């Protein structure tokens, strides 16, 4: 259940689809990431999301599979948008369906943390002052490292 797409998504529909897996699903935990506007110094006009098409699907599938192997969860859904996005646009959805909530929280945070350091997406900010590639954040590396066994 991996989708890489230009189109927008509807988190409500995704959550319902995860819930509808069966009446043994007690918990759905989801994460929706949005394009943040930088209010202080610079003005964000748009975000360009580049990816490596032949690798992206495989990379997200492997992260989802790892989440399912580590925790007792029933389903992992990942949607990641690519192309040109505007401030406040949805970028990414991660949804986990499970019997119990703890596993869903862990798996959801794991997926987004690892996606941020492993999946081949790159953000370029279109600012009023010109374009600029986003630098990887050390804090993201740290969050991802927490999950290393």
């Amino acid at each position: 259940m991996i989708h890489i797409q230009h189109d927008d998504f509807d988190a409500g529909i995704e959550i319902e689809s995860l819930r509808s897996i069966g009446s043994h699903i007690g918990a759905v935990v989801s994460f929706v990431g949005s394009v943040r506007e930088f209010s202080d110094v610079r003005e964000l006009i748009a975000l360009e999301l580049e990816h490596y098409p032949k690798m992206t699907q495989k990379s997200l599938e492997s992260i989802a599979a790892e989440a399912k192997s580590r925790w007792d969860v029933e389903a992992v859904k990942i949607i990641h948008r690519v192309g040109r996005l505007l401030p406040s646009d949805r970028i990414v959805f991660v949804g986990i369906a499970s019997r119990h909530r703890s596993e869903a929280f862990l798996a959801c945070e794991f997926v987004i943390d690892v996606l941020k350091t492993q999946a081949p997406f790159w953000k370029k900010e279109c600012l009023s002052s010109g374009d600029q590639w986003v630098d990887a954040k050390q804090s993201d590396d740290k969050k991802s490292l927490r999950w290393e066994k």
Partner: protein
Amino acid sequence: MKIKICYFAKIREQLDVSEEQLIFPDACDNTERLLEFLQARGERWSQVFSSDQKVLKAVNHEIVSEKCALNDGDEVAFFPPVTGG
């Protein structure tokens, strides 16, 4: 042997190439040799691949951090640290 090389994001812009087919001597059968080969192309190339700038590589769509063997038909990609999500 024939290797396909892809470049992404900032690396792609710095080198001004998104992909290329490379006929590579059979003896040069690993990513370290490939990097040396690319660096020898000139200043721009040696800067990108030997500077402080972090460059990640993937072989056949899997990120590899160590030296990795290459075979005919492989696809190698170079890109900066990822920033999705």
